[in-house]
């Protein structure tokens, strides 16, 4: 599928290729395979030896990268308009022709271990990974994305290549492009570039591992010396992106913690959790996140505590606030603020060519909406009642997963 958008304010094009493969498509023993494979797509093809793609894109001044999530693996480059065709050629080429040699697999293995070790330095990552694992008993979302260190070390080259040949194909991908040209022309060029790429005959059915209903709170404690401030994290089962409640859940996250993700910013301070936790001196920062995902995932809340503040106290206040927002309507004035933040942040994201294309691809790949305009309309149509009802449906004790990070003294 090809989706093109005009963005005429800068002489650039942003090309994104989304593959429907991620942590969701993996099984125990080879967790992290999709992410490992993402790295290998920069290691050369039959036409472009290793280093060729990096240097070409650098030469064009491109902003480029790739990421893997639970649902998708995605590659993008934003570059001068005149180089769009070259970017298409690179992406079409690596869709089927990556080498994934034994030598390069071995060389990249230590880089991926290093990436994982960098993440392990962060207590929030450690706690989040453990909490996600306990929140899912069957669905592969519980495995996360990067994989365990041991499985990265054991990842077989042939397994990677099989994964590649199965999932990297035009019949398992979205191409989204935004840029300084007529949308029809951008789409036609992309269609031509990918027209001859061989489809996969082996994609199979989307993974089916429905998560059984949760029947009670699950709770973990991570104790490490690698952080100095305590953390409380809550993760509630939440609907998938295509659920009609998804826009209201997006608004709910803004009502709880604003749009900027905590920290020392000047905005988002009117949000419920900032006022209840940060302004009261209980937390250094607090965040709430609802992600658009293919399958039912999690609504996350996390608070980094001020030193000496008890976990139980912050958890109690968090739960009180969640109960309040599940029970009572936001005031009209508060809801107007939330709605404005939600819609303005949508405008900010889509005013950048790269993020316009990303946003569109995310909506399409998760089934949240068929276009940016449709998603905007859905957000604009959210009511106070829908926010309250979405909160009441999600913030339920038996769907709750609780994690505490407890800093320990160094030996």
């Amino acid at each position, binding site marked *: 599928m090809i989706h093109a958008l005009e963005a005429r304010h800068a002489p650039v094009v942003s090309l994104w290729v989304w593959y429907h493969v991620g942590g969701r498509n993996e099984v125990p023993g080879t967790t992290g395979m999709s992410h490992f494979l993402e790295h290998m797509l920069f290691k050369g093809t039959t036409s472009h030896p290793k280093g060729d793609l990096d240097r070409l894109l650098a030469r064009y001044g491109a902003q480029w990268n790739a990421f893997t999530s639970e649902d998708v693996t995605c590659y993008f480059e934003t570059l001068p308009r005149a180089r769009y065709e070259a970017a298409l050629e690179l992406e079409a080429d690596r869709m089927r022709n990556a080498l994934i040699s034994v030598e390069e697999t071995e060389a990249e293995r230590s880089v991926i271990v290093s990436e994982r070790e960098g993440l392990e330095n962060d207590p929030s990552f450690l706690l989040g990974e453990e909490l996600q694992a306990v929140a899912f008993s069957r669905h592969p979302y519980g495995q996360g994305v990067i994989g365990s260190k041991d499985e990265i070390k054991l990842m077989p080259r042939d397994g990677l290549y099989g994964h590649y040949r199965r999932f990297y194909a035009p019949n398992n991908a979205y191409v989204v492009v935004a840029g300084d040209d007529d949308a029809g022309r951008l789409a036609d060029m992309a269609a031509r570039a990918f027209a001859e790429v061989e489809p996969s005959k082996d994609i199979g059915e989307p993974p089916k591992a429905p998560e059984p209903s949760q029947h009670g709170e699950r709770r973990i404690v991570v104790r490490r010396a690698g952080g100095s401030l305590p953390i409380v994290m809550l993760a509630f089962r939440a609907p998938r992106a295509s659920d009609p409640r998804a826009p209201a859940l997006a608004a709910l996250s803004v009502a709880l913690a604003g749009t900027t993700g905590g920290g020392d910013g000047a905005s988002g301070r009117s949000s419920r959790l900032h006022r209840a936790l940060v302004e009261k001196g209980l937390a250094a920062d607090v965040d709430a996140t609802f992600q658009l995902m293919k399958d039912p995932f999690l609504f996350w809340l996390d608070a980094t505590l001020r030193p000496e503040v008890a976990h139980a106290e912050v958890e109690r206040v968090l739960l009180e606030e969640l109960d309040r927002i599940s029970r009572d309507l936001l005031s009209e004035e508060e809801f107007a603020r939330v709605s404005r933040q939600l819609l303005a942040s949508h405008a900010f994201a889509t005013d950048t060519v790269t993020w316009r294309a990303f946003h569109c691809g995310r909506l399409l790949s998760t089934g949240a909406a068929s276009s940016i305009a449709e998603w905007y309309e859905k957000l604009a149509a959210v009511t106070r009642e829908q926010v309250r009802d979405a909160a009441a449906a999600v913030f339920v004790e038996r769907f709750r997963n609780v994690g505490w990070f407890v800093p320990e003294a*160094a030996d």
Partner: protein
Amino acid sequence: MIRVERRRLDNGLRIAVAAIPELRSTSVLLAVEAGQWFEPAGHAGVARLTAQTMLRGTATRDAAAWADAIDALGAVARLDIGAHAAVFSAQCLGTDLAALLELMAETLRTPALEAADLEFVRGQTLAQLERDERDTRAVVDRVWRELVYPRDHPFHSPGIGDAAVVREATVDEIRDYHATAIRPDGALLVVAGGTTADAVAEAASRTLRDWRVSAPRTDRATSAVSLPRAVRRAEIVPDKTQCDVLIGWPGIPRDDPRFVAARVTNMVYAADTFASRAGNVIRDQLGLAYYVFSGIGSSRGQSPWIVRMGVNPENVRRAIDVALDELRKITVGEVADDDLALAKDKLVGELDVALESPGGVASMVLEAELFGLGDDHFERYPKALRSVTKDEVVAIARSCIPPDRYALVVAGPPLPEPLA
């Protein structure tokens, strides 16, 4: 190419606008010469404490009312202390620009700066400092600065400041810093995005025209910094898996005529994990690190010029040796024509790509205006990048980032062998 329209208010505030009519949003940067460079000696952290306390309400609105007002616009805003400037940055819809500037002006001109506000900010800052003590990246940054800059230098401490200063700062100190440093002369308002120069000028005039500061500006004497030899330090941060490695030098001021050549040298050497030599060898060829990158700061002073890597303790020694070896090659003239061309292509190409976002445009305009790079900067800058020669790159590497005179800090798990 960026087209900038400039205005100036009577109080000295300069205004630079890059209109992008196709966009709904605007990126706003209000920079005041109140960054680390202007902080009084021995008071590292006062600038940030002042900035954060300014966000706690004004003469006419308490903290809650101010927060309500900015969130009612849907704006995203923050006030940061940089090496040179304190920058109030925000993104808002173009239609809300006047209302946003009113809130920003109120914060700059009439902050409440009450004792209770300072206590709140102090608590938050001390919590962050405590978090930083177990953050390998924050530790290497702090220790590296202590090794490189003398105690009385503005860059001796990170922007968050010294814990002792933060603990002891008084409301009077904060108010005094606000009264002398937060001023329109030397300040600059940059707006890029869906607005017009006239609209910005009108809104700015309405809210900032009467902004006057009579207190004299206190200049801070700062001596030149150089490293006479290599210094190395390892800091153990408990219970970590990976080491943060920082190799660096005191850089050169933004108005140094060699600065453009320094940017090219930086790109040839290590700026980009994939396009530069250090990353190419350390990550791509040897698999020793996930990230390797370098940066050179823009300020009036010698901002840090640093290389960063995240490395397993077993590989630290080798990664450092390779990073320095790649630098050594540059200093002896081993710069392939293609590597130099690639570095220049990338830096020039990035200028076009940065036009995709109002934030990218605003950042480029801010640098050009803040350091007086000239009205025709955006015309000259790509040509200046293109004209950098291999000899200049070699000379810059030898004089500014010598491979035998650097400061190196590693923070993380214990190393299998000593650094020295």
